[in-house]
């Protein structure tokens, strides 16, 4: 077993451990909801678990599983070396400790502002030390996520180590993520220009376009964690920072803009990219409509930047025009996801599988 295999396994084994923790927590909360375990679960403790549960599930389980898989698959598909195994190992430890500290912020320190963190609840109703520990844990989580993305971008875009720097990677990333070269060619009147993104396999395009969403997610959420950390630290020093410095509605817009990107980047684009990669391998034929799926991923990426308003439909001070815009763009995801479904032909695979089952039942019956 090589170092890359070991790395991937290390990630996925830890991910499964966090899945187990999240699963047990989920079951315990359900039991409390049917009025069992009432002695253990005071309302305070119940909401502490509910607050850290999504962090354990999303970052401990889902992200670590994705990170392990992509650390292995991306270099393999590109037939390249991983940019930095050291960063990969470091991001493993930062993430593992980050999730553990976030979990402790609830379990040992009493933080219970839920994952929504609506301003100013996290800094008004919980001990400052708990908010500070939560802030440190989540900043570590987002730092690990950003290290992973940097490693992915550098692996994908750097021609060879030492040939070019971070500036080159950033330029390539922006150009390829948003087809800027095609726009430039269009501006110059060049017709039938084939964008550079076509020189990358569909899977890799999904990985870096999805990573754009999740990078923006990590940056936004880290900024929010930093704000909470500053207020909590001031609270520990008995300095009273006024909560009115931050507008709750603008905060909520920024929060949902950043948080929603995880759904598009991690859940939609990464999953779609993985199946774009797997379906041809499994069925032994080219991906249906392979020539347009890169554009579908681009449409997904662009749409994902404008859909956050579906979380604000019950906020009546929110401008109506934003609510309508949010609804229209969210319906746009029906189109991109519909095309993804078409390309990966998952229903058709399901149909084939059912036919095989039917034949088998028929023969054995």
């Amino acid at each position, binding site marked *: 077993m090589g170092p890359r295999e070991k790395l991937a396994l290390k990630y996925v084994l830890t991910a499964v451990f966090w899945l187990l923790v999240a699963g047990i927590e989920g079951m315990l909360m359900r039991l409390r909801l049917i009025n069992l375990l009432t002695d253990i679960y*005071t*309302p*305070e403790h*119940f*909401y502490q678990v509910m607050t850290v549960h999504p962090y354990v599930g999303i970052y401990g389980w889902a992200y670590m599983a994705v990170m392990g898989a992509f650390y292995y698959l991306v270099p393999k598909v590109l037939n390249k070396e991983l940019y930095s195994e050291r960063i990969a190992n470091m991001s493993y430890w930062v993430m593992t400790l980050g999730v553990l500290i976030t979990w402790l912020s609830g379990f040992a320190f009493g933080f*219970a*502002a*839920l994952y*929504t963190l*609506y*301003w*100013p*609840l996290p800094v*008004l*109703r919980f001990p400052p030390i708990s908010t500070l520990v939560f802030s440190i844990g989540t900043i570590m989580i987002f730092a690990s996520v950003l290290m992973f993305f940097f490693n992915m971008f550098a692996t994908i875009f750097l021609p060879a180590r030492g040939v070019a720097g971070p500036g080159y990677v950033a330029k390539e990333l922006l150009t390829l993520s948003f087809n800027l070269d095609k726009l430039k060619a269009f501006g110059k009147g060049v017709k039938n220009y*084939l964008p550079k993104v076509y020189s990358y396999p569909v899977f890799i395009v999904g990985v870096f376009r999805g990573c754009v969403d999740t990078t923006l997610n990590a940056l936004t959420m880290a900024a929010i964690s930093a704000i909470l950390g500053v207020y909590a630290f001031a609270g520990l020093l008995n300095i009273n920072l006024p909560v*009115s410095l931050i*507008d*709750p*509605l603008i905060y*909520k817009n920024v929060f949902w803009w950043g948080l929603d990107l995880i759904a598009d980047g991690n859940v939609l684009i990464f999953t779609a990219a993985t199946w774009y990669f797997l379906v041809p391998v499994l069925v*032994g*034929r*080219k991906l*249906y*409509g*392979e*020539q*347009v799926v890169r554009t579908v991923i681009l449409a997904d990426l662009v749409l994902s930047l404008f859909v956050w308003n579906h979380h604000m439909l*019950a*906020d*009546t*001070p929110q401008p*109506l025009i934003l609510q*309508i815009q949010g*609804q*229209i763009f969210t*319906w*746009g995801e*029906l*189109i991109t996801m*519909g*095309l993804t*479904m*078409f*390309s990966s*032909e998952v*229903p*058709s695979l399901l*149909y084939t599988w059912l036919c095989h089952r039917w034949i088998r039942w028929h023969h054995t019956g």
Partner: protein
Amino acid sequence: MYIQQVVEIFYLGLVAVYIVFILSFMWITSRGRRELSTDGGEEAGRGMEKAEKTWLIILIIVAIFGNALMLSPLVPSVNTVIWSKAEPVKTIYITVEDYNFVLPENPIRIPAGVPVEFVVVSNDVTYGFGVFRKDGTMVFQMQVVPGYENRIVWVFDEPGYYTIRSTEYSGPEHPKMVIYDAILVEGGVE
């Protein structure tokens, strides 16, 4: 009973839409089926394939139809906000602070069949303002964002008592934020 039936019809409708999706998908793919290619060496053309274009058109039609439906007066909250623009005949001011709803009167008396406006203000954190029927089903809800006047206009059709409940987590004592029979809708048809 009425609400439950609406919910059931809605879910059955969703299932029907899903079946139509799968059937149209299978129909299109059976028409546009190409030669199976396993060598991977063939250079495909760039644009969309014909079957895919048809599928895209279906998706766009569904999206346009869905958007129009969700912005139409058929959705009660949309009707109140965008279409009817009815002037409220009564405005009820409610304050929320430290897990408590402060009501102007208990119960709040509201005439049936006319638009009334609720203005809810929070003095600390974000809460929810939800109004529920006696059977536990929800009439409407909105978020109560601190620092803003959160306004909602509603027309109550059915007379009777209604419950007010916070519909947003505001801290560990949030589940206690419920006032039974806080609203009494009077008049109209029993």
